[in-house]
């Protein structure tokens, strides 16, 4: 009877425990990318990735129909300026916090179609900064660290999209 009570307790706590573990998984995965990224490149700089193929194994499910550039950021040293020319074909700049939430997005799609041909200039600030202190487009990161990911369509002639990524930047102000 005692053993059964123990086993029942273990099963109940383990059942609840899987949800606690699930809460930790996204942060663990992002920390892995953050640490791996830091060993390859510095923080707060934009890195243009090669066209994904079978050797692309740093992030799961890369799309071979997209070109990517990423900026692993740390706002401890102050705000960042993220600049990018916007090509005519599909383009997006997505902001992820350390629990994987996609907390902000800038695109040339839907209501933002008019961005094509323009140059986006985002000031990325932390929770300690006051958005009113900055001019232009300001995005406030919920966490001090995170990842900005630029995606552009790689279908058809990709010359313009590749050039747009290479002319983009992510740097401390």
């Amino acid at each position: 009877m005692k053993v059964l009570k123990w086993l029942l307790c273990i099963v109940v706590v383990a059942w609840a425990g899987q949800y606690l573990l699930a809460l930790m998984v996204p942060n663990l995965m992002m920390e892995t990318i953050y640490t791996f990224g830091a060993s390859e490149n510095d923080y707060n700089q934009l890195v243009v990735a090669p066209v994904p193929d079978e050797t692309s194994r740093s992030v799961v499910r890369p799309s071979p129909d997209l070109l990517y550039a990423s900026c692993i950021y740390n706002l401890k040293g102050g705000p960042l300026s993220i600049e990018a020319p916007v090509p005519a074909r599909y383009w997006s700049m997505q902001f992820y916090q350390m629990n994987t939430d996609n907390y902000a997005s800038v695109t040339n799609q839907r209501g933002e179609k008019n961005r094509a041909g323009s140059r986006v200039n985002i000031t990325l600030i932390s929770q300690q900064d006051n958005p009113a202190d900055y001019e232009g487009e300001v995005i406030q990161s919920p966490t001090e660290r995170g990842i900005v990911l630029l995606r552009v369509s790689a279908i058809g002639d990709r010359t313009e999209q590749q050039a747009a990524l290479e002319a983009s930047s992510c740097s401390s102000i």
Partner: protein
Amino acid sequence: MLKLGIKLLSAAVLTVLLSVVLLGRNISQGLGDMSIQNGDWSTSLATGSKDAGAMLKATVALGGLLASSAENSIYYRLRSVGGEPLRLNCSYRIEGNDYEANWWSITAYGWDNYLIPNAEKRYSFNNENLVRNIDGSWVITVAATKQAGNWLPVGPAGAPAWRNMGDYDYDLLLRLYTPGDAYLTTPQSAALPTVIREACQ
């Protein structure tokens, strides 16, 4: 006292191990109960969103990290046809047309969630690089051996086979970029390609 200590430690270790097994089981089922089913395809509108639950976030973190929110791109995954997991010894026929989206692609991923090594270096088809029929419709054949027309090659995943805990060899991912309203409001019935299992060896 020592006996009780050993008992508590053993119980704690067992609890953690069981938690890991339960979590692994939940995640290996993919989106499972959290998904919206549309034929053999499954999706979730909460992918990438801050509204996603803990289990969905964990599943996406392991199998689709840095996914976009649905308004930007919606992902439909297919890993079985009629309940039968996708196998390397079978060939599959995908039939489709155009879809209400800025553009779309269909990609094959190994069970390890990475692109499948193949001599053709072909991992996907998109709405622009398909050979189409006169009426605009198209057919893709997914198979390990060379096929005529739009052949999407598959083969063993890049990771060692002993690590495969799932019941499928690979899966297909349909990405619809800037999807139309039908995908955002009625993803369970919006138009999608049809996948048919053909010959198995």
